[in-house]
């Protein structure tokens, strides 16, 4: 009987893990600069930092995906060599990736069994694997059906597969890379229960997150990275959210942006019983009615895949509306061409900024005129006016503080935050009447997030009607005047911000009316 025949447990495999003087250079960047970091059994250690601060680099080194130029890794005081994920798995390190590393067309058991030796030699032993999955799931309170196909499962369940995968391989130390980014508040609570059970069992956890209140809630210690350097490590009990934010950014950060007092105006955008399909052929929106007023931000909350994308696309003309009516300032725009809707000054900040928000291989200047390129001052009779395009780029780069080497730089070479600034600059500078902002700060760091939110509030002050689609409840609370919750393509409820609580929204997002619960 080998060790792996018993149910794996975190106990006794890794008492401590230490990374010493880790340095990693990429062309032109020092991604990790003599970083020290350590985790002990039974603790949750938070790793904080802005995008590009070096969190992922450090963790990829620990997991064997990157090789450090300098530095060493010690487990239980002994130096170890990690040159591939296989090495780190064998040493007892597991990683829950932010983008799940699952094969959707395979079952839970197949995903867990992948890459492992089978008790039946060349043949798969899925029955054995399934039984052990159920045993493991019982210990840690992870409910899962081993024979379910991954694509049928919710995001929360998929994350549990990732955790099971790591535990199944005997992981004593788990790296959780922004595990809560995609979860509902209830799912986050469930994850924290599981995490507490794991630390009790002797596992060490590394918790990467942007959400400071979660760090304060679940972690024992917190380390902050900035620009590839370790700024410091402290017990969580000795810090506050404000301290951590300032530490991360390196300056004072405003937490709750100033919303000011804005008088709500007339109805700008109206949806009446709008129905449309989804990419999977199932109903996308099942009769959605919404009013958005001038000077108002209407937050759309919900777990991803509940109709948010379809809503944005139905309004912007990118998706065919099957029935119902969309009106913009009194004029019907249902199923008009996107170009015609654009003409009526509806601006769109799409969810996938790299795919739908810009053209990666175009320059910054070109991306800035995508929406208006066909008319003066940017072109006359089909000829581009390069002088005006360049002047426009200079102006917007300055105004929106876009960090780019030049206006001739390819958009794909900029950071996520600066790419979003370009989209924002293009969409806002045309003085829109309505803005649809879909996940406008997803993946952005605190500094860029703060900036985007300020700009949206500024637009609200100017009287623009804004739909804010976001899976980030903090963001919904920080910006919205009213909050509509989408669940399976229907609006569960619309609540004024003042009377909304995360618990209430969380239940609505799960499809439960609080009154009926």
């Amino acid at each position: 009987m080998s060790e792996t025949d018993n149910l794996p447990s975190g106990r006794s495999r890794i008492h401590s893990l230490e990374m010493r003087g880790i340095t990693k250079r990429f062309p032109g960047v020092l991604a990790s600069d003599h970083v020290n970091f350590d985790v002990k059994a039974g603790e949750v250690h938070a790793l904080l930092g802005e995008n590009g601060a070096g969190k992922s680099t450090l963790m990829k080194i620990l997991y064997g995906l990157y090789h450090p130029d300098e530095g060493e890794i010690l487990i239980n005081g002994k130096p170890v060599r990690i040159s591939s994920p296989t090495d780190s798995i064998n040493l007892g390190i597991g990683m829950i990736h932010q983008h799940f590393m699952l094969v959707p067309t395979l079952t839970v058991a197949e995903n867990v069994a992948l890459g492992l030796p089978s008790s039946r030699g060349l043949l798969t032993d899925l029955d054995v694997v399934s039984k052990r999955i159920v045993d493991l799931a019982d210990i840690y309170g992870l409910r899962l059906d081993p024979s379910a196909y991954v694509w049928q499962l919710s995001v929360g369940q998929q994350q549990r597969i990732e955790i099971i995968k790591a535990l199944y391989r005997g992981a004593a130390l788990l790296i959780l890379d922004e595990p809560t980014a995609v979860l509902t508040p209830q799912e986050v609570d469930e994850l924290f229960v599981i995490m507490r059970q794991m630390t009790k069992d002797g596992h060490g956890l590394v918790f990467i997150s942007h959400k400071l209140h979660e760090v304060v809630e679940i972690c024992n210690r917190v380390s902050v990275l900035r620009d590839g350097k370790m700024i410091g490590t402290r017990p969580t009990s000795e810090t506050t959210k404000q301290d951590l934010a300032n530490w991360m950014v390196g300056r004072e950060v405003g937490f709750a942006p100033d919303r000011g007092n804005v008088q709500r105006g007339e109805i700008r955008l109206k949806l009446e019983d709008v129905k449309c399909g989804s990419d999977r052929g199932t109903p996308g929106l099942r009769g959605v009615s919404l009013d958005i007023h001038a000077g108002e931000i209407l937050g759309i909350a919900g777990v991803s895949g509940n109709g948010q994308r379809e809503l944005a696309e139905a309004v912007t003309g990118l998706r065919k509306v099957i029935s119902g009516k969309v009106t913009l300032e009194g004029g019907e725009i249902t199923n008009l061409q996107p170009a015609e809707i654009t003409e009526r000054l509806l601006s769109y900040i799409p969810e996938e900024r790299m795919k739908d928000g810009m053209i990666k291989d175009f320059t910054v200047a070109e991306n800035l005129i995508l929406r208006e390129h066909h008319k003066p001052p940017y072109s006359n009779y089909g000829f581009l006016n390069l002088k005006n395009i360049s002047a426009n780029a200079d102006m917007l780069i300055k105004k929106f503080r876009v960090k780019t080497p030049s206006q001739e730089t390819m958009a794909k070479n900029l950071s996520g935050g600066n790419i979003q600034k370009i989209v924002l600059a293009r969409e806002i500078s045309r003085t829109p009447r309505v803005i649809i902002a879909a996940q406008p700060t997803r993946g952005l760091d605190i500094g860029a997030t703060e900036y985007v939110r300020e700009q949206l509030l500024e637009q609200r002050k100017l009287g623009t009607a804004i739909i804010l689609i976001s899976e980030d409840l903090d963001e919904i609370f920080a910006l919205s005047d009213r909050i509509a919750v989408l669940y399976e393509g229907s609006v569960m409820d619309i609540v004024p911000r003042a009377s909304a609580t995360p618990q209430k929204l969380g239940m609505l997002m799960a499809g439960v009316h609080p009154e009926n619960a």
Partner: protein
Amino acid sequence: MISDLFSVTVLVGILASGIRLSTPYLYAAIGETFGQKSGVLNLGVEGQMLLGSFAAFYVALTTGNLWLGLLTAIIVGALMGLAMAYVTVNLHAQQGISGIGFYLFGLGMSDLLFQKLMGTVETVKGFPEIHIPFLSDIPGIGKIFFSQNILVYLAYLLVPVAWFVLNKTTLGLKIRSVGENPDAADSLGVSVARVRYFTIILGGILSGVAGASMSIALLNVFQQNMTSGLGFIAVALVYFGAWRPIGVLGGALLFSLINSLQLWIQVLSIPIPSDLAVMMPYVVTILVLVATVSRVRAPSALTKPFERGD
């Protein structure tokens, strides 16, 4: 007359040669299925077949040993696969384009070797029919299914074996996951490169056998471009069969039966223009693909080179 087609002898003949003609489709398309399941589209099948076909024929002709010919085709196919794997896996070349390159290489090289080494069309005595005792005596059925050459039997054996390997073994699990989400496979310590090398070389070997089955079992000659697009149809069959060996078998049978029908129409001098008849399999390819292809999703990572990192 068209009514000539409906005599028992002719029908048995059509079905028997249909089964026989499906052999090269089966080998090539099953090999291609493995490649595509792991995320690699190999458009060079036709070229691999042509070189395998020539290699098998030439060695069989000069040594008189059919098995040695088959072995040579396997080696040639494996080498072509190895080259394809290096270009697509290590060099991250665009799969469609490099596949066309390998096709043109195989086409040109097989012709060059043919001109240099042989010059004129010759024939060999190919693999003989093996009459399975008792079963081959059943009227009709016996002739159709149980009086074929060894490569036909092996081709049909390959179908359940391929299904088993893909669905019931750890190797199959690796292949399927590498074709759907190579990042996931990589993160669990599965070597994406090794899996793809395996499937591409296996595909090359089976393409080589497919070529050999034409030159030393079915037609027993080699001539320039003798596969005439069959390798490309094999690629289409993988889509048609929705990446399942059994579906590939169905597709292979459909096309070979149409081919066989077309041959018999010519043999019986039925008054259908022969150009039209020859066109049939290709027209059917297009029609069937249009009708079926959107049904099933291709492996997600198909044609995408894998590179670790973001």
